[in-house]
């Protein structure tokens, strides 16, 4: 069965520091991969997605993610974090054969001034 693991429940970084949020998935076929962000009290907003092609994907707000098939990973990165990036981040996996997206349990990002 498909599954998504986000091993870090909370991460705290200083403003201006770099960020990497981890995501590992389990699925036999080529997955479609997504990162969403949720600000407090809001719905989820898509940051970026990977379907095929270049394994380094650029998204909104300066985020990028890299698909590594050998490691079954799709980690989210940002070179310099801003205070407004404090939110919860969700990784999700889908496939062509299924309507469903499977979400990870989320990583809450805290940003120190």
């Amino acid at each position, binding site marked *: 069965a498909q599954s998504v693991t986000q091993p870090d429940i909370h991460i705290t970084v200083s403003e201006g520091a770099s960020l990497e949020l981890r995501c590992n998935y389990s699925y036999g076929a080529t997955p479609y991969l997504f990162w969403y962000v949720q600000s407090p*009290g809001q719905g*989820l907003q898509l940051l970026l997605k990977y379907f095929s092609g270049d394994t380094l994907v650029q998204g909104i707000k300066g985020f990028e993610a890299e698909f590594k098939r050998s490691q079954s990973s799709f980690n989210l990165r940002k070179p310099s974090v801003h205070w407004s990036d404090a939110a919860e981040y969700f990784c999700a996996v*889908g496939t062509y054969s299924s309507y469903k997206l499977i*979400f990870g349990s989320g990583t809450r990002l805290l940003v120190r001034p």
Partner: protein
Amino acid sequence: DVKVTQSSRYLVKRTGEKVFLECVQDMDHENMFWYRQDPGLGLRLIYFSYDVKMKEKGDIPEGYSVSREKKERFSLILESASTNQTSMYLCASRTFDRGKSGELFFGEGSRLTVL
């Protein structure tokens, strides 16, 4: 701008009450979804609908039902609310062409408290 609107942001209900959560999308999307969000558990799929009058159970359908009579509207129904259904409920929609655009568009959520 694409928009998914959930009619109630906050609801407080009593145990045993029937609860309706409404979701409307203006993007002419075929697929619509109801997720439940709980701390530490991420989003779990309750039901989804791939077209009008079509529905399929997700991973946690027990205690819930859904209705999709029109393409733009997808309702989640709690026939007899229980305290363990206190949660944030998120509606989402997506175009049918999932191979090219599988992303979900989400509403802002409905926070339900069952006393």
